């Protein structure tokens, strides 16, 4: 079980009963303060400031190249199954792959991961787990085109993830292509080779903070066909029949709020003549009785999903593209500016986000969608835990 996030201080690790006040043991800032400073910053900010490149020594009146700068090195890590990269997932099966956090010398070699990349011979869905955080990065299997990119458009994380050597990640990967699938996952970031005690401690405090804010993909938890009054299997893709009205629910975890950055979509239609889905409309409600986020006339179907709401995929080198699971698709990842202009939306913990899709397509739509952002732990104002 994940630790109770507010129960300990991320800076000294000692018990801490109040998130709103500085730590009684180490005087570390309140969690609320840290979150307000850290939330929503760029992908490399979690570790803190970057290592400066130039230093100025006013005793000698000279500029020096910071010797510590060259100890932060680019690192590409591979996802492996039984020491194999690439590896093959048998048709329709699930395999678990490892991402090894190899140390360099001794315990040096902390890794800060900032982007996910992957190529495959067919579509698949993935759910990563980060042991150091004791957290999954999603609430279910996520279509890989919504999580990974390639060098052309990397799947940049909303916030980096800091890892200590030997805390290997793992991920479950399920083939969706109905054929043997050769998969190459690659994770990019930087390896910190620093020996400086202060910097290591600073970095590892940042690692502790990852427990309170980390990237998260929210995929459908339930789906219901309003036209036929029949439930639909939601995971990891949803089949929307011709001309159907389907409500899809995305449930925010009960122990953390969700700061949404994007809604991503890589859906396709069986209507071969219509490769782009122009015939899928949507409305979004923040819970069954919550606010409507899409304001459109009552008699309308809402707004075109891929034109106005979700960020659709774009074709890039090396990534699957096409209309079916066995063909290959595109990736938009988190690399391009959000259609929301960078505005985020905080969904409270436990909220059932409801998206009502109306298809006017003559084919069956395979819906691949996810809300992407940061899961934010911390005291719950609704319980009087924040003042």
């Amino acid at each position, binding site marked *: 079980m994940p630790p109770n996030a507010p129960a300990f201080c991320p800076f000294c690790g000692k018990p801490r009963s109040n998130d709103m006040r500085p730590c009684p043991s180490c005087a570390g800032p309140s969690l609320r303060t840290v979150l307000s400073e850290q939330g929503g910053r760029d992908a490399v900010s979690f570790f803190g400031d970057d290592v400066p490149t130039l230093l100025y*020594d006013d005793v000698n009146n000279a500029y*020096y190249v910071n*010797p510590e700068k060259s100890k932060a*090195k680019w690192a590409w890590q591979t996802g492996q199954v039984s020491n194999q*990269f690439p590896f093959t997932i048998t048709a329709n099966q699930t395999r678990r792959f490892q991402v090894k956090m190899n140390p360099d010398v001794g315990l040096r070699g902390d890794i*800060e991961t900032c982007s996910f990349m992957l190529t495959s011979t067919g579509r698949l869905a993935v759910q990563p787990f980060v042991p150091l955080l004791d957290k999954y990065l999603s609430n279910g299997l996520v279509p890989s085109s919504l999580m990974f990119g390639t*060098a052309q458009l990397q799947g940049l994380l909303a916030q*980096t993830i800091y890892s200590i050597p030997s805390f290997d990640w793992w991920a479950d990967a399920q083939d969706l292509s109905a054929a043997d699938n050769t998969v*190459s996952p690659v994770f990019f970031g930087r390896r910190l080779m620093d020996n400086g005690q202060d910097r290591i401690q600073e970095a590892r405090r940042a690692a502790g903070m990852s427990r309170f804010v980390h990237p998260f993909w929210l995929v459908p938890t339930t789906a219901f066909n309003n036209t036929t009054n029949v439930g639909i299997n939601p995971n990891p893709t949803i089949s929307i029949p011709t001309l159907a009205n389907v409500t899809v629910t995305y449930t925010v975890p009960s122990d953390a709020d969700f700061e949404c950055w994007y809604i991503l979509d890589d859906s396709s239609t069986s209507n071969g003549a219509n490769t782009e889905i122009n015939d899928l409309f949507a409305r979004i409600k923040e819970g069954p009785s919550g606010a409507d986020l899409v304001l459109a006339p009552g008699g309308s179907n809402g707004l075109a999903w891929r034109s106005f709401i979700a960020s659709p995929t774009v074709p890039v080198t090396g990534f699957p593209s096409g209309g079916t699971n066995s063909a290959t698709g595109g990736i938009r990842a988190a690399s391009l500016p959000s259609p929301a202009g960078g505005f985020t939306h905080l969904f409270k913990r436990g909220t059932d986000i409801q998206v009502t899709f109306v298809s006017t397509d003559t084919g069956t739509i395979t819906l691949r969608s996810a809300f992407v952002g940061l899961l934010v732990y911390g005291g719950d104002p609704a319980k009087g835990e924040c003042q």
Partner: protein
Amino acid sequence: MIGGAAVRRPRPISIFGGDVPTVLYSDPARGGDGTVRINPDKSTVQWRWISASVNGITPFALPSGATLKASLTVPTTGGSDEGDFETAVLMSRAITGAGATGRIAIQPRVNSPTINRILANDVICHNLIAGTSQLPGVLPQAIYSLPKTSWDFVTENLAGADLNVQLALHGRQFTGCSPCADPVYRARAEHLRWFHPYWIGPQDASQADYTGPEVTLAANRSTNITFPIPSDADFLMLALLDDSTSAGGGEPSLYAQVTENATSRGLVDLPNTNVGASSLGISWRDFMAIPTVSVTGFPGGVVRAWSFAPNNGGIAHLVPRNTQIIIRFTSTEANAITLRVAIFGILVYGRQPEDRTTSMDGRGNRERVEQGEEFLRRMGLTSAFKQGGPQ
């Protein structure tokens, strides 16, 4: 900062500092009248495109197999000393008489009144340096220069056909005397002493076949290619760039491992037991280098680099001076591959730590460093990443 990766825009880091404010507020608390006014200085900062020419002609003719030097000079505006210019973008176009596009290679040089800098170790395939207005080649850091600064471009024809070539800078010029008269802004032109954008292409005195803007990797061949770091400055790597093509016409099947010097650990973590393709590294164009994409006016593509959004999450990698980056390329296809690759980053001058005559350890050092950082910030000379790695 709101957003982060989601809202970062491709823009160079301004040496000038923050943009000139558009609206000014006259604060009554400070004796003002509470009005909001358009900043008169704003309209003195103007877009400029400056084209390079050969013998005063642009576009200029570049015969097949020829190498020419094109040049431009930043003009003054008004007075003899006005018109500071901040270059943000490099653009180029090379076409044949029939209108087809062709590749060239260029090596830019900046000749300011106080210091000259070459921006690449050799001529580099132009797809990896410049762009077009569709995807401009945005610099990671703007180059601030005084009027009368000249640029020249060694330009080599790679197309095997006569070409008409146009090269241009795009940026902003300070046409009013207010900024220009300020010695602080003038001092910022000195940033070239400390760092500037730089491209490194393949160069190895012992391997002539693997030196230059285009090198050929034979079918199913594996080889080390060297990218030397200059002896007088460290190199802050920002991106690996690629515009390679296969003689077979398809996507090049190319794997790579990157090392700093021959003996260092590779930057790619591979399985302990090499199985199949894993022994080769990882796919160069899928996971490591930013490949080109097709745009108007370019053969096969222009580097995406900083044009959409940053790759590598803004993470830079510093390689010490007088060392080298070695990339081991392995082709797994039966066709020859024409490699057009470059490493893009910022060349960082400054003394080496071992040159210090006083200790920089301990608290005293920390204070000096902090003071130094503050000084650098005031001068617009903070580390490249902070100011602009990708934003």
